């Protein structure tokens, strides 16, 4: 199960590969072949196809077909028409990521250093909800946050919410849902990196006149940074592309770019628009990730 905790992080460990023997290289390719082929065929090729689609004539339709016209203006049109959705996606994803970090770090920390024999149980409880369909859980949020549900009632009673205020169908609900949905992906890598941290280092910092807060800031946090980076990426990326939370817990004013891509593909059948928005989304994500990773200085990851 700790292997599961390491699931999102690890990779950078590498470990010195055994020296190549004759013929081993061929074995390597044989081992790689099926998986790599699968990814090439069903991930890379589709992306290329999608790239092509993004340049189709925007006036194409089912009955007329879609012509490749290298319509780069699709990108311009998509961005201008859906800039608010793009912005909102990254805003919500950003807030959700920060919240998930603020919530996830203490949980991961407690699991790594405070849980003692409860450690495995806690890990279990973080992982187990994966098995209850996230749609079911998100629908549960819908009823938890419902206008005449318990949370709203309590908040109204204590005056934190206006008598006619509500949670469902607000940004708060959407961000709550996003945070909730991706929290495990934040907790697990941070936990994995904290697990590896030698508590002696924190003691050493205390011994060298660092107060607990300073020791955390100077030692614990920097040393768990690989986990934090992995966790934030594992939260931010899917959150930025998500549409289910906005759709179930929000209103059109909360819709994110994922909603647009989804409905362009599946409802309005505007494939060029959907494709170009997909690429804009990916490009921005990659850009942000690169900036972030460079800023935080964890080169190993990307």
């Amino acid at each position, binding site marked *: 199960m700790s292997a599961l905790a390491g699931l999102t992080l690890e990779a950078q460990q590498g470990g010195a590969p055994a020296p190549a023997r004759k013929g081993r290289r061929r074995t390597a390719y044989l081992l790689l072949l099926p998986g790599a082929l699968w990814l090439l065929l069903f991930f890379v090729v589709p992306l*290329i*196809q999608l790239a*092509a*689609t993004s340049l*189709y*004539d925007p*006036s*194409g*339709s*089912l*009955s*007329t*077909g*879609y*012509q*490749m016209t290298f319509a780069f203006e699709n990108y311009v049109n998509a961005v201008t*028409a*859906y800039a608010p*959705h793009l912005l909102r996606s990254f805003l919500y994803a950003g807030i959700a990521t920060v919240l998930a970090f603020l919530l996830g770090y203490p949980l991961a920390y407690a699991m790594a250093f405070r849980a003692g024999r409860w450690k495995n149980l806690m890990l279990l409880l973080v992982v187990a909800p994966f098995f209850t369909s996230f749609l079911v859980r998100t629908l549960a949020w819908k009823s938890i946050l*419902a*206008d*005449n549900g318990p949370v709203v009632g309590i908040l109204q009673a204590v005056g934190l919410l206006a008598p006619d205020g*509500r949670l*469902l*169908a*607000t940004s708060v609900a959407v961000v709550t849902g996003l945070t909730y949905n991706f929290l495990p992906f934040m907790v697990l890598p941070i936990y994995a990196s904290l697990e590896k941290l030698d508590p002696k280092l924190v003691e050493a910092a205390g011994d060298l006149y660092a107060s607990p807060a300073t020791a955390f800031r100077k030692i614990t946090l920097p040393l768990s940074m690989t986990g934090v980076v992995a966790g934030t990426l594992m939260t931010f990326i899917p959150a930025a592309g998500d*549409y289910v939370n906005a*759709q179930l817990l*929000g*209103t*059109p*004013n909360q*819709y994110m770019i994922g*909603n*647009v891509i*989804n*409905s*362009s*593909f*599946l*409802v*309005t*059948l*505007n494939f060029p628009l959907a494709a170009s928005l997909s690429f804009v989304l990916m490009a921005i994500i990659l850009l942000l990730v690169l900036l972030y990773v460079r800023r935080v200085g964890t080169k190993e990851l990307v």
Partner: protein
Amino acid sequence: ACGTPARQGAQPGAAAEDLSDTEKLLNFSNWPLYIDYDDAEEGRPSLEAFEDATGITVTYTEEINDNAEFFGKVQNQLSNGQATGRDVVILTDWMAARLVGLGWLQELDKANLPNVEANLLDNLRSPSWDTDRSYSVPWQSGMTGIAYNAAAIGEIRSMEDLLTKPELKGRVTFLSEMQDAMGLILLNMGKNPGDFTDADFEAAIDRLQGAVDAGQIRSFTGNDYAQDLVQGNIVAAMAWSGDVIQLQFENPDIKFIAPEEGLMLWSDNMLVPTGAAHKKNAEALMNHYYDPAIAAQVAAWVNYISPVAGAREEMEKIDPALAENPLIFPDEDFLAQTNLFKGMTEEEERKYNELFQQVIGA
């Protein structure tokens, strides 16, 4: 990849091999709240009657929530000439027209539809997109208006209320179907949904955008507004007539009104998509539902306008009060205040949909 070819079916009406004679099966996709349903028995009496009479087993799926959404779901198979797994689907006129145009429907054998031939109301016999009803048989007609929860909000009378009333802010849903939503807004702006200009439409879009931006509208829904209305998450909704009358059984405070500005009228059709392997069984089903007694039975539950002549007479036997309900059996005067959305060219349809889409953001 140099583009994707047009998806028009090679020969309109191309039929799959009909397995009806050997497989007594039928896959029937419908909207929620669109067939008689006995809560106590947890069964659908009219459908059971059909199964008993024909020995055909019906797989009934309430999977259609919105025309466009459903189309999006099946268009891949249809455009590739593949079976969708559905033998009968129920879609609204304009969507049925699109399918006819694409050649994705199977031509019906009139010989198998004596009841339809006999009982189909005259005014429905020859729509512009399927002039001799070769591909479609009406299921029900209905109206788009306003539903609200009278216990939660004072009286609602108009689209104006829906668009602007502060008490409704964030507690009202609109329909995600462009014809429904824009039709009512055009009416609200004094335009005729059956005949308007691009400028009219754009003005209406702006009005809608304003309401969205103000946070007035909670969401754009398909048939799923019903749930939110019953659960109390919303207090008013753009809604379809029959649904609301059914919801009243759950909650008597829920009311359907014709907005002061007018109602939209539409009808839904039974269609057999290409690739469906049980056309003859489908035709048997269509014929079954054109038995006036069955039609009345359905109408008594769903409260939509039945396209079957003689249903009203049968209804008298079931529930005389319903036979007088103008939402189920509208008279000429009532129909006069209803409106049809105009038939659009493909070009117009794309343009209006795109504008609408940008407002609803999905």
